[in-house]
């Protein structure tokens, strides 16, 4: 295996407290030296002056679409996108066709990952058979097959009794349940956040109470069962409060937020013009919420109530979005803009660097207890897995979905200028480097 030297960057790792300019030396898929220049010469040198050198990012929530929806994305295309976005570990959500609700399905997935994935992919198994919300999947078998969490993401487990049974089993297995918290009786038909804007646009709204009620229910069940409940993509201010309260009471709850909910509000549905655009690319589930909610999510992240930033990367084919707003498939292709929006928010002073990096690395690794499977994941440690990201925190660039590696070009950020970009990634010891042509963005930085 080639040896790689990342030279002269600012090594920053909240998990170990390291924050110093220095070198990172990688050989044989491991970090061989950290900080001080190594004695050996490297096969490849990455100049990282002015850049941040960070642990590879861990994404708890992504949709790779394979098998079943290859027109939207494949394991090969979407993990390439993950790599370019700095994500060296990705948890694949189970809403595929067929879904991983049995050990053979998980084995098939693992084989696909081994063959096609550019980064480490960990499977999330179904809570219920066929994600139908009627009968439990064989959770023990799924855990044994390698699932890192259980989820029916996209289809919340509406039946409270069934959810309680799932929690009892998951608690016993020590595997977290990642739940899309949504009370369908309240959100049914809703296609954007319920509020003054949805009523102006005439679009059916999904009220915040739909998420809040489901979070409250699931926290109550977690408290009774002792299950490790992970709240997927929390989007409401009240939801953050409930999570904070549960944590304060010692209930084993973790939570994630998406870069989209941190950066955007429901106004993205209207778009930038004076007339509403009904931008289908801003349709996402849970919906983009109000500015007050966005502020509360930022506060919750800064306060440590929210443990992780997860992309909910959801690529779609063009025809899934080129339609009426209420018929558009929900989801945003997020891998390749996550760093851009997050570092833009750092530049604006909305988020702190340490918060963002922790929520992309050690935070998610600990939420799903991934350290047991991948020693050193989410940190930079000598001898640990060589997952390293080099981020240029100050380069300005314009989002051009046609340049995405992802098959999903669906983003409401097209044309948006962002600050901060992934320059190089080492995933499992293999180097990817941004091509020089993209350095055109440098000019914008010295504006």
């Amino acid at each position, binding site marked *: 295996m080639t040896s790689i030297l990342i030279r002269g960057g600012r090594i920053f790792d909240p998990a170990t407290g390291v924050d110093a300019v220095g070198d990172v030396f990688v050989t044989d898929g491991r970090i061989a030296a950290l900080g001080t220049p190594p004695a050996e010469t490297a096969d490849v040198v990455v100049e990282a002056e002015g850049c941040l050198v960070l642990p590879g990012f861990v994404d708890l929530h992504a949709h790779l679409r394979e098998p079943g929806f290859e027109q939207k994305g494949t394991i090969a295309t979407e993990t390439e996108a993950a790599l370019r976005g700095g994500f060296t570990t990705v948890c694949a959500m189970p809403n595929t066709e067929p879904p991983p609700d049995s050990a053979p399905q998980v084995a098939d997935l693992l084989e696909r990952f081994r063959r096609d994935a550019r980064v480490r992919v960990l499977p999330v198994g179904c809570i219920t058979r066929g994600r139908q919300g009627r009968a439990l999947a064989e959770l023990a078998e799924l855990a044994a097959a390698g699932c890192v969490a259980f989820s029916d993401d996209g289809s919340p487990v509406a039946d409270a009794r069934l959810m309680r049974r799932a929690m009892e089993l998951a608690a016993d297995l020590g595997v977290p349940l990642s739940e899309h918290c949504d009370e369908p009786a309240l959100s049914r038909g809703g296609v954007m956040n319920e509020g003054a804007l949805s009523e*102006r646009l005439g679009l059916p709204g999904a009220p915040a109470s739909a998420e809040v009620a489901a979070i409250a229910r699931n926290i109550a069940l977690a408290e009774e069962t002792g299950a490790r409940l992970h709240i997927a993509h929390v989007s409401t201010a009240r939801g953050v409060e409930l999570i904070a309260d549960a944590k304060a009471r010692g209930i084993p709850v973790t939570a994630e937020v998406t870069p989209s909910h941190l950066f955007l509000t429901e106004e993205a549905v209207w778009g930038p013009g004076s007339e509403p655009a009904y931008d289908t690319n801003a349709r996402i589930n849970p919906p983009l919420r109000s500015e007050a909610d966005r502020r509360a999510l930022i506060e919750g992240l800064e306060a440590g109530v929210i443990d992780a930033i997860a992309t909910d990367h959801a690529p779609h084919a063009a025809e899934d979005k080129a339609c*009426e*707003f209420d018929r558009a498939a929900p989801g945003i292709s997020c891998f390749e803009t996550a760093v851009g929006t997050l570092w833009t928010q750092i530049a604006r002073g909305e988020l702190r660097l340490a918060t963002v990096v922790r929520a992309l690395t050690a935070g998610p690794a600990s939420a799903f207890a991934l350290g047991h499977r991948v020693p050193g994941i989410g940190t930079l440690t000598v001898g640990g897995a060589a997952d390293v990201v080099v981020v240029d925190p100050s380069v300005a660039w314009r989002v051009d979905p046609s340049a995405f590696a992802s098959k999903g070009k669906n983003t409401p950020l097209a044309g948006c200028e962002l600050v901060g970009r992934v320059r190089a990634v080492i995933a499992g010891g293999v180097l990817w480097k941004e091509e020089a042509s993209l350095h055109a963005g440098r000019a914008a930085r010295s504006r």
Partner: protein
Amino acid sequence: MARSTAPQTAPAVPATQARWTRKDLLDTEGLRREEVELILSTADAMAEIRRRPVGKVAALRGVTVATLFYEQSTRTRASFEVAAKALGADVVNLTAAGSSVEKGESLIDTVRTLESIGVDILVMRHPSAGAPAVAAKHASMSLINGGDGMHAHPTQALLDLYTMRKHLGSLAGRRVVIVGDILHSRVARSNLWLLLGEGAHVVFCGPATLLPRHLIRSLEGTPNFHWSTDLEAAISGADVVMALRLQKERQEHGLIPSVRDYVRRYQVNAERLAKANPGVLVMHPGPMNEGIEISPEVAHGLQSLVEEQVANGVAVRMAVLYLLAGARAR
């Protein structure tokens, strides 16, 4: 010819008149006052044409207008068709039922096909809010929103305003009460923006489950906006009362306890109208459920403008078609 030495002022350029520059008419929200004036004054001229023995002109000769309705409608579609024909345009009528739309063709493919056929102006009605906006983005032809979901119905609101103006002159300070299922009403929304722009007092009135609570909250502090769940209180001092159609499925969905309960509390009837200003005008966008949101004697009474609304609809739609066709020519 020698120039005169006498002091002469060059003739002033005639006062610039408002010009129509929009490609599409999608909503009344965002329409400028002078655009509204231009539509209404043009509608005046169109109304005059409708009164002539011939009743039509050839101004839009060679222009193709298509109506594409994904929802049932007799009145609006017929009104647009008559308006387009009165201006000499060719008219194509399409319904979602029985067309390629039913075979799964996407909205955008349908719109592009119509454009390739040579349609210049497309009048669209669609159950999804924003569908005309999405279509307009993908087409260079002009789009007229003939009603989209709960969002907007701009020509209805313009004809309502035109009708009110004919009777009341300026609407500044007038009290217009809109009664019924405001939450699901594109007519109420489009009227709201226009009427606030005219300086009218707008009162939204209906049961709590059928009011857009968030929109109402966001309008608190707008001096001319009011709301009430009590029709007797709302109607007091009203110059115009507009009743909205109550869809019967609202009861099935639990939004009202029963139609009977709705009638008791919100039907516009003679007894309630007596509390309004003398000469109060009664309007309804149609089609009416007589005996539900409006009593038959009021629907057909002296104060009812319902038929006049329909007649004015043709003139207003002629004006809109004419202005959009003119903007296309440029």
